[in-house]
Structures are given as structure tokens and as C-alpha cells.
């Protein structure tokens, strides 16, 4: 019905169509290689279209300031219904000419730029052939533009508030950076206290402990942050600017419904269990510890001691536990272990400390001194090819191939960071894919590392991948940067205009399109038995189009009808 009416109104429009065809000479770049006068004459006499009036002109430089003024004036005085520009690449000047259209009554989607420079005058040497080609492209542009439809921006109201999931250091930093008088933050933590795994760090990183403490205090005092402890996130629907969320708190499962414009996921990570590695076997009673448990011991006891209460006289620190199993380097363990080694040496110079490492990975410029400090503190650093731990017995192969065995009073392992247990739960809840390692997948590794394929959901801290405290906080601030610049209180969001729509009459609700959409822009309307595009989320790539068996999809501004007209003219 709707489709029919739309086609009808477009037909009406075509009956009265007046198409402006303006060809840019681009100095000699087009005019010198293409016989523009011939094209002007040919196109003016084009009798392909009854009831279509063509106005065909050429101009020196349409992209220049006088050129744009000229074009604006021409559109206004002629009252064009459609406009074709024969010029350069749309990558250069599509937005320029769309801008000109916007100053007039002509909808910018009823204009088409045709690239007769990069595709004709610059790459075809013979004038005759270049002219024919340019004419063919322009005919294609006219045929296509007549099939284009008006499209309009649909500004959306937004909610500037933010849900932050996870009360570790990344979540805290995000909440603090985002909260303001016109932006509330809902900070949700599943346990009964803030701080996350950073809390355990204060043993050998007292300064970091202090920082975390201060930040927790700031959260408590911040009137724009609403804290939910012992709370889980149960239900999420929506998209950037408009999310509806259900929180479930406490033993009584008290439900709070909130609405926000964005979600920051800061659900953290876990430690790899060393016993999953073939190279580590030990029991609970062995004097074998992980780096985190030692940090806790340090905090509680101001140093390390054996279960007997005695101080160990020899300690082995073993790097890279789980690195091969996980197939990534966590990037922070070397620095932590060296700091720990120094702490052990300052606890008592009677503790012999040996560090076993494969590669020293200190990617932060300020961390390099950790290595020098460890060396200076008398830590023995042994580079190995291979190592295995049985209780406190360590057998290893040095880098030169020599095999050795040594026994220690205490062994401390540096396990890799791995995705936290509830990562998968949140991936499903938020429809964010996981990467090959089980961490949340960013939308683009380099150009958008905190964004996810569900726009409006951001991933920060170690939920994104292994990283240290300062990087975690920086990721948190990066998400804040995106939210603060995109969700501005009182302002509206303007989603992509040239998106895809699904024609209800043809849709069988098979759900193929739903499967292939990486943006989660399509949902199933079970009541009507069809799939529906959320135009606020769709980016207009058209991938769904190829998946539709019933021809129900229409990629606005790149419809098949439009493309067929271009094909027809190309093959004339």
C-alpha cells in the first residue's frame, strides 16, 4: 500500500520532472579531453524521456565559490525537480553539491554527481572515446536520478544519562568522567563494594591503592552518580541515545527500571588458572601462589611468609603463565613481577629472588626502570625457553639450551588475564560479539577501539583485553570522550539517511537479514511475522539486501531500480 502510494507520487513528480544537467569543465581537465559542446547538444536532444524537461549547461568550475552560487541560483530560478552534476569524484565534491542543494528547495537526494573526470577524461586518451564515455555516464546519471526519492533527516531525541556496568577502576573512572549536572550516571556493581581487582593491588603498589581509594570516595560524594551495589543488569533494549534497562538488586531481587543513552561495559577480567597449564602442577598445600594472592598477602602482612609463618629464603617468580595457552601476552605481568621482586628484596635481603622469563615486555616508557631496579636489587633474572613447575620444584631450559632443576621455598606465578566469567552473559545481553580470545570485540581495532557493533555500547578496561590500570582508565576516559561529544544534553542525534527498509508485503520473516547485520539494526516483529529495520541504527551498507530471498529489502538511495538504470545506460 505504502509502497504503491510512494511510487505513484514519484510518478507524478516524474511527469513534471525538470532535470538540471550541469557539467563542470574543471578547466582543461574535463573540457580539454571531452567534447563538452557535443555532449551538451546530444543530451539536450535526448528524447528518452517524455514529460521530462532537460536543462543542460556547462560551467568553468562548479566547485568554486562563484560556481556554487551560480548553481544555487540556477536551481532556484529553474525550479529543478532533479539535478545531475557531471564533474569529478563524489569523494571530492558530493558533499559540496549536496550543500548547495540544501540551500534550495531541492532535496539533496534528488541530485546525483557523475564522475566524468577520474572515470573518463583522466583515463581515456582518445577524445572521441572519452566523450562517448562521458555522455554515457551522464545519461546514466539522468536515468538514475529520475528514480531517486526524496530522503529526509530524522533527528532523534536523546537521553544523555549513562549506565556503567562494573565498579572496578575502569568503571569508576568512566563514571567520574561522565557525571555532570546535566548527565546522571548509574554505576552498577555485582558485588558489595567498589574497586574491583585494583583493590588487591595496594600491597606492592601502595600509590595505586591510594588512587583507587580516593576515586571510590569521589564516587560516593558525587550527587550525579547513582550507585547500585549487589546488582545485576537483567534486561537491555535500545540503541545509542535511547536504552531501556532493568536492574535487579539485592537478595530480594528489587527491580529498578532506568533509561540511558549509552552503556559503558567495564566488567573486568579474571586470572588464568595456572593448573590449566600442562606445565604447572601443585596442590593447595604447596607454597605456590599467584601474583594477585601475593599482593593480598603483602597488603595484609606487609610482606610474604610461608604457611609455617617463616619467611622464605628463596622465591621463584615465573612469568608468562598461560601466555601460550591463551596465545596473547597480557602486557602487564613483567612490570608487576619486577616490582614484586624488588618488594621481596626490600622485605629482606635474605630472600633470594629468581625471575624466570621468556621475553621482557615493558611497553610503557616509564616501566623500563623496573628492569634496572630489579637488576640493581640483586634479583637474578633468567631467560628461559621452557619451564615446568611441580609444587616448588622448578625445571627449566635456559636460552642457550642448558637444562636445569632447582627447588625453592616459594613459587609465585604470573598468570595471564582472561575474560571474566560473565563476559558471555553480557555479550548476549548487549548483542556485542566476542573476539577469538573471548574478550569483547571492538568495532574497529584502531579507529574505534572502545566502540562496539552495537552503537552506544562501549567496552573499557580489561573487559576489552588485558591491560594495566592506567590503560584501563584511559579506555574509560575514551568512552567518556565519545559519549560527551555525541550525546549532548538537549541536542538531537541525526542518524544515517540512506538506510535500508523492509517492505512488509514481501517480507516472510525468515530472519536471514537479521543474521547478517553486524550492527544489530534489524529485529524481528513476531506479532506481524516480519523483520523490521531500526533506521536509527542502520548504516546503509546493504549487506542484508543480498541475503533476502523474497526481495523485501530496499536500500534507499541504492535501490535495484536505480542501479538497473545505470546498468542500462552503461550497456546501451
Amino acid at each position: 500500500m505504502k509502497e504503491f502510494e510512494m511510487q505513484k507520487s514519484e510518478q507524478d513528480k516524474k511527469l513534471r520532472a525538470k532535470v538540471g544537467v550541469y557539467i563542470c569543465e574543471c578547466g582543461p581537465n574535463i573540457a580539454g579531453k571531452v567534447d563538452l559542446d557535443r555532449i551538451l547538444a546530444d543530451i539536450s536532444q535526448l528524447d528518452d524521456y517524455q514529460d521530462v524537461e532537460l536543462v543542460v549547461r556547462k560551467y568553468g568550475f562548479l566547485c568554486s565559490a562563484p560556481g556554487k552560487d551560480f548553481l544555487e541560483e540556477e536551481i532556484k530560478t529553474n525550479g529543478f525537480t532533479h539535478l545531475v552534476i557531471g564533474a569529478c569524484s563524489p569523494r571530492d565534491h558530493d558533499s559540496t553539491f549536496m550543500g548547495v542543494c540544501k540551500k534550495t528547495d531541492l532535496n539533496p537526494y534528488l541530485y546525483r554527481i557523475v564522475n566524468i573526470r577520474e572515470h573518463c577524461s583522466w583515463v581515456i586518451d582518445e577524445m572521441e572515446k572519452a566523450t562517448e564515455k562521458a555522455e554515457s555516464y551522464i545519461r546514466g546519471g539522468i536515468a538514475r536520478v529520475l528514480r531517486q526519492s526524496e530522503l529526509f533527516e530524522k533527528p532523534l531525541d536523546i537521553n544523555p544519562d549513562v549506565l556503567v556496568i562494573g565498579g572496578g577502576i575502569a568503571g569508576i573512572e568512566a563514571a567520574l568522567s561522565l557525571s555532570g549536572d546535566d548527565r546522571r550516571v548509574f554505576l552498577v556493581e555485582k558485588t558489595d563494594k567498589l574497586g574491583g581487582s585494583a583493590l588487591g593491588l595496594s600491597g606492592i603498589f601502595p600509590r595505586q591503592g591510594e588512587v583507587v581509594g580516593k576515586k571510590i570516595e569521589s564516587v560516593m560524594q558525587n550527587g550525579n552518580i547513582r550507585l547500585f551495589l549487589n546488582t545485576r543488569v537483567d534486561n537491555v533494549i535500545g540503541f545509542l541515545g535511547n536504552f531501556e534497562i532493568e536492574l535487579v538488586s539485592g537478595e530480594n531481587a528489587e527491580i529498578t527500571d532506568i533509561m540511558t543513552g549509552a552503556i559503558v561495559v567495564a566488567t573486568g577480567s579474571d586470572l588464568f588458572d595456572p593448573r590449566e597449564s600442562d606445565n604447572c602442577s601443585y596442590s593447595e598445600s604447596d607454597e605456590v601462589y599467584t601474583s594477585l594472592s601475593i599482593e593480598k598477602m603483602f597488603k595484609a602482612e606487609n610482606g610474604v611468609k610461608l604457611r609455617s609463618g617463616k619467611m622464605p629464603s628463596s622465591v621463584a617468580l615465573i612469568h608468562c603463565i598461560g601466555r601460550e595457552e591463551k596465545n596473547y601476552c597480557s602486557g602487564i605481568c613483567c612490570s608487576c613481577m619486577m616490582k614484586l621482586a624488588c618488594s621481596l628484596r626490600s622485605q629482606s635481603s635474605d630472600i633470594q629472588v629468581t625471575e624466570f622469563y621468556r621475553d621482557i615486555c615493558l611497553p610503557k616508557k616509564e616501566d623500563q626502570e623496573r628492569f634496572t631496579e630489579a637488576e640493581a636489587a640483586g634479583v637474578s633474572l633468567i631467560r628461559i625457553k621452557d619451564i615446568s613447575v611441580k609444587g616448588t620444584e622448578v625445571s627449566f631450559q635456559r636460552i642457550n639450551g642448558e637444562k636445569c632443576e632447582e627447588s625453592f621455598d616459594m613459587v609465585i606465578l604470573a598468570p595471564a588475564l582472561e575474560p571474566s566469567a560473565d563476559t558471555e552473559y553480557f555479550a548476549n545481553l548487549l548483542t556485542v560479539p566476542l573476539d577469538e580470545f573471548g574478550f569483547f570485540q571492538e568495532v574497529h581495532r584502531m579507529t574505534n577501539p572502545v566502540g562496539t557493533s552495537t552503537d552506544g555500547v562501549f567496552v573499557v578496561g580489561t573487559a576489552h583485553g588485558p591491560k594495566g590500570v592506567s590503560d584501563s582508565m584511559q579506555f574509560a576516559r575514551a568512552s567518556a570522550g565519545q559519549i560527551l561529544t555525541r550525546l549532548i544534553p538537549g541536542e538531537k542525534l541525526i542518524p544515517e539517511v540512506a538506510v535500508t527498509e523492509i517492505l512488509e508485503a514481501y517480507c516472510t520473516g525468515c530472519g536471514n537479514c537479521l543474521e547478517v547485520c553486524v550492527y544489530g539494526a534489524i529485529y524481528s516483529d513476531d506479532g506481524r511475522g516480519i523483520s523490521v529495520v531500526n533506521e536509527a541504527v542502520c548504516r546503509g551498507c546493504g549487506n542484508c539486501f543480498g541475503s533476502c530471498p523474497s526481495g523485501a529489502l530496499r536500500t534507499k538511495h541504492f535501490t535495484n531500480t536505480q542501479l538497473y538504470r545505470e546498468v542500462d545506460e552503461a550497456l546501451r
Partner: protein
Amino acid sequence: MEESAEFTPAIVGFLCNWCTYAAADLAGSSKLELPPSFTVIRVMCSSRIDHNLLLSTFFKGADGILVAGCHPGDCHYGEGNYYARRRFALLKQVMATLDLDPDRLQLSWVSAAEGKRYAEVVNEFAEKIKELGPNPIKNSTRF
């Protein structure tokens, strides 16, 4: 033999906006020679190209079709080109049943920096289509 020497194939190239169209621009600004029989049609992503569009383009008389997009892994929309690749493999099989040489359809990955390679791909493809001769199902009423 003489006929095929004079045969100028009609080739349509569907190029993705982000990578290959940019490469075409680079080839243009580098003034690399391209065959006049090659017509570019811009789409946002190679995954937008469906079987109907390609088959119709053949029925309408294209002697060859080049679809070109970002290299695998480089898609502006995440993974569109992987879908394009899969759909392609399928269509090539269909083409054989239509007496249409599957070589008339080519999928190439050309990045935005590869202006020179773009020109090579297009020129080589045009040569190949020239050798294959005219499209046998052009304007065919069989279908």
C-alpha cells in the same frame, strides 16, 4: 577470428565506495589508461551486490562484470566483503548452468592505496573478456 579482434566488450564494474572507488580515483589522478568499455557503478559495499543484479546485468548484455571491494578484513562495515565472497562462489556455480563462463564474473580486492593495481586489474579483466568473446546469453529470451 576477425570478429573477435574487433569485439569491444561491455564491462560493468561495481565498486565499493570506501576502497576500490578510492583506488579508481587514485588511478584517475595518476592518469593511468583504462579501457573505455569499462563502466563504473558505485555501491556502498560489495555485499550490497545480489545475484539478481549481477544476472540481470548479464542478461542486459554485459560481457563481463567486475565486483571489487576492500581486502578481506578491511571492510568499512566490518565483514561485508566476506559475505560478498560467499555469495559470489555460489553465483559462479549458477553461471555455469546458464552457459555463461564463470570467468566473466570476477571479484577482486583492491585497496584505496592501490591505484596502479586497480588499473592493472581492470585492464587484465578487459583483456580476458575480449578473449572470451561476446556474452552468449545477451538479450536471451530463454530465461
